[in-house]
């Protein structure tokens, strides 16, 4: 059985409909990527899964449990942690406090602890007592990922982690994905950087205007097919 099953997911902001019947599955240990242009609905999808947006209960099923209508705090305590778009570290907390607060809602044992996260991102240990806002963009992204990992989530959601970062920094961040795979993590990433997405994902979903337009393993997908699914037929 899939770890996460999304069936016919719809979402709206007031009068505006952002998702029109999205179907998606995530198996344990898989990494799937969701790509698409701005406004395609990728972030809406992530926020629906994370519980920030409320949907019909059975549109999102996590390990057999319908979570579509649950709040973000409830979803997190069940084991789905999100690295939100724009990092969103807490300015009033230091780097270390930002990491620690990641396990407020769920204290589960597993591969990740403060020490192992410092092992993954040594620069964070160096600056552990600095206010979170003193870090560079790339370092903040690392801290945000560490903050999500520290609760040993069963599913990790990464919303646009390459946004606003220089290519060399993006490479550094994506370099951790093999390590994630070793620990058996199940990951959903949302990306505008298709190159990176295709490199780390087992399967890809392409979205346009609130719908899934293409899905498959990276090896199966041709450039033309992705182009058409991303931008629409020329």
């Amino acid at each position: 059985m899939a770890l996460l099953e999304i069936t016919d997911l719809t979402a709206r902001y007031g009068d505006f409909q952002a998702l029109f019947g999205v179907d998606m599955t995530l198996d344990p240990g898989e990494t799937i990527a969701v790509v698409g242009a701005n406004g395609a609905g990728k972030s809406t999808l992530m926020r629906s899964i994370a519980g920030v947006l409320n949907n019909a209960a059975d549109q999102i099923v996590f390990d057999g449990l319908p979570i579509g209508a649950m709040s973000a705090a409830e979803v997190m305590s069940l084991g789905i942690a999100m690295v939100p778009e724009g990092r969103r570290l807490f300015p009033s907390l230091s780097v270390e406090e930002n990491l620690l607060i990641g396990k407020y809602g769920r204290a589960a044992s597993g591969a990740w602890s403060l020490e192992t996260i410092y092992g993954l991102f040594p620069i964070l240990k160096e600056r552990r007592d600095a206010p979170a806002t003193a870090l560079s963009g790339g370092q903040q992204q690392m801290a945000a990922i560490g903050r999500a990992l520290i609760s040993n989530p069963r599913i990790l959601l990464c919303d646009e982690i390459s946004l606003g970062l220089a290519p060399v920094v993006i490479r550094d961040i994506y370099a951790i994905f093999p390590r994630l795979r070793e620990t058996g993590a199940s990951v959903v990433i949302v990306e505008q950087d298709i190159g990176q997405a295709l490199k780390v994902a087992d399967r890809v979903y392409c979205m346009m205007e609130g719908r899934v337009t293409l899905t498959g393993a990276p090896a199966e997908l041709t450039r033309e097919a992705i182009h058409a699914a991303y931008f629409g037929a020329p």
Partner: protein
Amino acid sequence: MEATPAGWWVETRTKASAIFALVAIATILVALAAPLFASRGALQDLFFILTMLVLAQSWNLLAGYAGLVSVGQQAFVGFGGYAMFACVLLAGLDPLLAILIAGVAATLLAVLTGQFVFRLQGAYFAIGTWVVAEVVRLTLAQWAALGGGTGTSLPAHATRDMLGATTVGRLFGFRPAQAVDTICYWLALVLAVGTIGFIYRLLRSRQGLALAAVRDNQEAARSVGVDARRVKTFVYFAVAFVTGLTGALIYVQKARISPDAAFSVLDWTAYVIFIVAIGGIGTIEGPIVGVVVFLLLQNTLADYGSWYLLVLGLIGIVVMLFAPRGLWGLFSERTGIQLFPVRRMLVGGPPIAASEETPDALKGAPHVDSVGENARPSRSGR
């Protein structure tokens, strides 16, 4: 409006408002004649309603439109009252002139205190205005010539020799005290109508549009050239002027003043806030509804002392929690009726044909066909 394309113009009049305008004029005419047939007690009640209405409309303009939430307006009521007393008792001036001077004095107080309170935002601003009121109260309580902490009274002749009092007395056969009450009542009526008229004109003017923009989103307003600071300052001074006038008028009628009464948070802020909140913040109709409700409550419950205030407080809480736009807001939302229409609508001109190429991203998106602080998705608001 210069930018409107040919064939269109901007209008605010609606059918309901046109009817209301006629009703309002009729009411005002009746009200003018009230001293001829109303009892003295009823006239004093009406005086109270009118002055509370002015205070409520003023506070509404300040908090509901300019976003300046003050819990210290009693500073201007009291200062106006004391300024009037000083003019009459110490300078021997006519009470009517004193009232006018009091309004100016209150404005000067606003200029002075504005230096301080305008450095503060939001909740800080609210507390700051309260502290200012306390400072003014405590300072005036030191003024021995005006009775210090216990206060003082106007001598009978000061009001009875008021401008117009003897004329009115002769004309209608009133005794001096009644003539004074009548003049005070008429002044209150003029003040009430004038204030509402001023606010209505203001909201329909460019400054009013600027106010609405500032209230909705100060940054966005600034980006299109609206000077939020100037607009708010103007409103603060104008409201101080009106509040000072009202305070002076109230104390001409009462003829007795004391620091605790003149600067009472309950009488001049708590009741006012409740009137506006229960009636409907941010609308001109709201305070009118609020005053009526307040009077009804007061007449039914006033004998019950603290129970009355308790019930008033509970009603205020419930209304703010579940009907934040007040009673008028509830009514207006259901029916779309505006008696003092300030919403601007684009009328006239050729109909807009639906384009075949509406971008996909806009399909299903909400659109507005009227501008103003009550902009809502498409609804025929003519």
